[in-house]
């Protein structure tokens, strides 16, 4: 893998979209403290992750108000 698409914040807070080598992307992360790797994981993996995780959230006792709020929102997978 030679290059990846990244978005990072310029000094003026603007999005910079670039195709960078791993070395260059690592330098950007070091300089700016944050970087977004675009299309870096199969979106369907995130969907499956969500389907598996969301129902489990309601089983967690230490969830304070968030769980009730999620249920109020009626998010898919939490019903």
């Amino acid at each position, binding site marked *: 893998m030679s290059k990846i698409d990244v978005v990072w914040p310029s000094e003026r807070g603007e999005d910079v979209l670039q195709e960078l080598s791993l070395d260059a992307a690592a330098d950007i992360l070091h300089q700016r*403290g944050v970087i977004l790797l675009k299309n870096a994981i199969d979106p369907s993996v995130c969907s499956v992750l969500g389907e598996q995780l969301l129902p489990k959230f309601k089983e967690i006792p230490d969830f304070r108000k968030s769980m009730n709020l999620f249920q109020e929102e009626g998010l898919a997978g939490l019903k």
Partner: protein
Amino acid sequence: MSPLFPFLQKYFGTKEIILQGQNIHRPRLQRQQDNENFLPFHQDGGFLGVMLLRAWVLITPETCGETAPSVAFLPGAHDTIQLIELHPISEMHSGLDMSHSVRDELLRTTPVWAPIISRGDILIFYGYTPHRIFFPCWITEKPAIP
């Protein structure tokens, strides 16, 4: 193959990477009307006491930062653990809320960056990079789970 591991290997200069699955069990619903649940500017590394790289993926919805809440950063301010605010905006986040004087000075000199994140993107940031939940001003209800 995801570029995440090659990137991390390049970044750390090693093939051995330790991943810690944390926070995935502690989702927080972020809505404008829930002030108590609202995360202020903070540093994860400072909070946990160790330097970390954080990698976030978006679970739902398909994008955030435009029509759903996202996260906002103060880029370039990741080299120091800042003081904690003595009068936090919420007791829930006492010990987390960054010093308001430091925060305000950073906000005066550093443009806030709120990326638009799509499902499939990986957001990587230093544990010391100040960040908070970001609500686009036109959002009213839609929640997000990063």
